[in-house]
């Protein structure tokens, strides 16, 4: 299918196994790599420090009563360069400033929507060409606009 300019290393944080697997396949179909899957904050904590993802897709309600906001805070601290995009059915739970995260994909997502978001994120992160318009599937946060300058 699509050939990315430079494949992204992606971390998937999602407690529903089927959704995580599906997301993983959409990501790989788009030519990127899933470097790890995590279902909870503890799973993310257990990842090796040097395994820095370029992009993390993070659900809000996670296993072991942990949240996507906690995971975002951990990633911000541990891998400040990683772009965090929430994937959630509950967008209202996300504070207006996104707490430093870069965007959100609303559930239910479509494979087309996720693919379009990945393509867009990749172009922004690698500063390829003129800034493209964000696809409808991706709500962008201020932190993402900051990457483009």
């Amino acid at each position, binding site marked *: 299918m699509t050939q990315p300019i430079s494949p992204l290393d992606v971390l998937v944080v999602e407690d529903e196994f089927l959704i995580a697997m599906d997301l993983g396949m959409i990501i790989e179909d788009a030519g990127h790599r899933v470097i790890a899957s995590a279902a909870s904050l503890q799973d993310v904590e257990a990842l090796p420090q040097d395994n820095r993802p370029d992009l993390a897709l993070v659900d809000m309600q996670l296993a072991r009563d942990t949240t996507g906001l906690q995971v975002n805070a951990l990633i911000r601290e541990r891998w400040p360069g990683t772009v965090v995009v929430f994937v959630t*059915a509950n967008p209202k739970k996300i504070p207006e400033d996104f707490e430093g995260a870069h965007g959100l994909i609303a559930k*239910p997502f*479509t*494979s087309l929507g996720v693919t379009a978001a990945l393509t867009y994120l990749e172009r922004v992160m690698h500063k390829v060409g003129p800034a493209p318009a964000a696809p409808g599937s991706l709500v962008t946060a201020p932190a993402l606009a900051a990457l483009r300058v």
Partner: protein
Amino acid sequence: MEQRLDWTLTEALDYDHGRGDPFAAAVRSTRMAMIITDPNLPDNPIVFANRAFQQLTGYERHEVMGRNCRFLQGGDTDRRTVARLGEAIAKGHDVSVDLLNYRKDGSRFWNALFVSSVRDDEGRIKFFFASQMDVTARIDDQSRIAQEKARVEAEVGRRMAQLQNSLEAQQLLLHEVDHRVKNNMTMIGSILRLQMREADDPRTKALLRAMMARVDALAAVHRSLYQSEDITRFDIGTYAVNLAQDLGQAHPDSNIRIRADLSRAEVPAGQASAIGLIINEILTQTVAPPEGQHAEAVVTITATTEGQEAQLTIDVDGNRDAAPSGLGALIIARLAAQARCRVGWNATQTGTRLHIAATREST
């Protein structure tokens, strides 16, 4: 002095005693309690009290004569009202007050007291005339009304709080249901996509892909409804553009350009799923290239509201000449009938024009 004696005497006389003063007889026997005091005597004592006054207060005539009437006051009598009364009397003004008084037996009553001065030809105050009326019932009514009002207000406040709580509970429930619907739709999508990967046969794969696109279209309808300001309205123009953009971005090898000219074109939420699916069938059949092929198309989407109809026009200018077929055609026909909308399908010189007209209001 003679006159004054007459007043005093009147008190002792009976109506039929023949003294012959009809005014004195009237004052004596009226149901209105009345007294006369003499400010020219020490401490302004009572010099006359009629029978009604004795009945009201429970005191005998000889018990009140010669006394200042403050003996009617008691522990709960309002001091400020008494002060107001005293001040008016000192200045010789008429005064009317509601005063809590006590009977001889200690029981209380509200006394609507009216005091006026009686002056001689030189303007000097000769007497004070005072009438008393038991208004306990009125005062009780007032306080009962005040209590009732407070009770009703408290009840209204309680009901308002209940309504507020039940509204909040409903909103919570709506969010919870919305969240679960979205999670379930996400799961359905994931399961279908995973199944699709298992299919080896291209025809099975294509069928599953069409199925997937329909589930995705429904998911997009749900998302757009719950992300909008008004969950009872569904804007078909915005929806069509989002769907077309997703299609375009999913086929980056094809050259699909989208132009949009959107005015508000809303239909009721109840029609959203049906019309959303129709738009999906149209776009997947006309815009998306067949598997493994390259497409070149300019899609112009126009949405307006004309009269009672939301109108959507999709002009596909390019290499497709696709009239709907198979399940797609059936879905469009049946859903159009269900949602009472008209779908037109014309070949143009360079492509295809589609037109959807749907009623703005529920029918």
